[in-house]
Every structure is written in structure tokens, then in C-alpha cells.
């Protein structure tokens, strides 16, 4: 198993963990953490998958570089909105409808 393939698999597992976290976790700050795990999983797949045969590919590395910076901006934006929500309502979870 080349190292590219190992990290691609790890990226898939992280992505799945991130999605499950976003769906099931109610606390909004933890949802932001799960969103970051999803992003890291996708980046690992993007860089690791072309390397499964051992050739280093610079194009997805450039894309992931862009992606990391955009992810931190999105996280900062999400945190700003969360802080505003906390100041306005005092809660850290979105209001839930009754579920069966």
C-alpha cells in the first residue's frame, strides 16, 4: 500500500466522520469542528489519490493550498455568526422542531 493510498483512506474516514458529526451533533461549535474535519478529509483525498502510484502531482496541491485558506476564512465567518447568535439569544444550539 503506497502512502498515497493510506492517506486517501484516512481522508475518506475523516470525511464520513465529519458528515455524521454535522448531522447528529447539536452544539454549533462542535459542528464547526466537524466541518473542519470534513474539509481536511477532502484535502487528504485530493492530494493522496493521484499519488497512489507514486507520482507527485502539483495541481491538486495548489488547489488544496487555496482550499485551506478558504476553510479558515469560512471557519472565522461561522464563528463570528455563532458569537452574534450567542449574544442575541444566549443559546449555542439551533431551535429544534419536535422529532418523532
Amino acid at each position, binding site marked *: 500500500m503506497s502512502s498515497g493510498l493510506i492517506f486517501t483512506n484516512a481522508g475518506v*474516514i475523516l470525511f464520513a466522520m465529519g458528515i455524521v458529526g454535522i*448531522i447528529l451533533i447539536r452544539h454549533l461549535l462542535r459542528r464547526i469542528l466537524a466541518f473542519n474535519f470534513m474539509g481536511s478529509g477532502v484535502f487528504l483525498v485530493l492530494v493522496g489519490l493521484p499519488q497512489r*502510484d507514486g507520482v507527485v502531482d*502539483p495541481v491538486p496541491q*495548489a488547489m488544496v493550498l487555496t482550499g485551506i485558506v478558504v476553510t479558515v476564512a469560512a471557519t472565522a*465567518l461561522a*464563528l463570528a*455568526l455563532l*458569537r452574534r447568535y450567542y449574544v442575541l439569544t444566549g443559546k449555542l444550539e439551533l431551535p429544534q422542531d419536535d422529532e418523532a
Partner: protein
Amino acid sequence: MRRMFVILGATFFVAFLIGSLFELEPAAVSLPTKVADNMAVSGVEHPVTAVLLNFRGYDTLLEIAVLLSALVVILAAGIDTSTEVRPSVDPVVKTLARLVAPVMAMVAIYLLWAGAFRPGGAFQAGAVLGAAAVLLHLSELIAGWKSPKVMLRLGLIGGFLIFLAVAAAMLVHGALLEYPLDWAGDLILLIESGLTISLGLILAGLFLFLTRDDGGRV
């Protein structure tokens, strides 16, 4: 009940995806050879920098625009101020920050210049600059940014404007972001310098605009 469905679905998804990963054929188009063939006309010697600023420069231009939009929305979301008294910072931390910040600025300039030959470039340099600004703020040597003044605003949008100006100038001569051969290296360095300063200020602003002090402690 819902949890069971979601976790089961995610497990199947992971199993199928990992199973299919072992049966992939080699790619039809080999991008590394295409990049290596065109490295001579790109103006730099490091393939990732060439892809980032020359072959796919449009993506980088749009990315810096996205960062600016995120910063504008953060400013619009509102800054909550509080005047709670926080414990003051240890003077050892302040001295350390004063010693380390100029070294970080030097590392950032080196990373910017080295991006043409080695791993480095505008994003890494901007990240180090942003981290230096956050460090200085956390050791209370820089106040939080309450409202951006003219110099700060110019610094924030300067990188994007330089990039846009170069792109527009190239549009007059030919296609968008197609550098002439003997100017490619210098244009890339110019764009990267603007990007470094802007990116450092934007990343620092993501942290410093949200801070809660009233700006008067320094």
C-alpha cells in the same frame, strides 16, 4: 433511531468508497508531465508556485476575492464589545513576543522569495505574517482593530487590486493572466508580494476584528 440510520449509512459509504479505491485504474491524463513540460515558460522553478500563480492564476484571484468577502461579512456580523477586566500578560511573554515578531517577519519575506525555487510562496508567507500579528495581539502589544482606517483598508484590498491590475493589463495584450515570457518571473513576484501583505492582514483581521477588548489597553 435517526442516529442508527445515519451511522449505518456512513459506514456503508466508507466501506464502498474504500473498496472502490483499491480497484482504480491509472489516470487517463497525466497532469504532472503536462506541468513539467510547461515549466520553462512559467517563470518560476517550483511546480506548485507555477500552478498556483501562472497556470491556474484565475483560481488564486478568485480566492483572494472570497477572502475579502468573508472579511466584509465578518465586519457586518457585528463586533460585541465587553469591558471585563482580564488578567494582564506576563512580561516574559511580552519580551518573547517582541523578540520573535521581527524574526517572523524575516521568515515571511524569505518564504515569499523562496517560493520561486523551493516550497514557499505567498500563502505561507502571509500565514506567518498573520500569525505574528495574532501573537503580538495576544501578548497585548497591538490593540484589537475596532474600525479599519485608511492604511489598513488599503493594505487589505491592495493585494487583490494588484492582482486584478496585472490581470487586466494582460487582458489588453492577449488572454487573461497570460504573462509575456520574459516578464513572467517578475510579475509573479509582484503579485506574490501584494498577496503576502494582503493575506497577512486578512488573516490577522479574521482574528483581530472579533476581539473583545475596547482597544485602549495598549
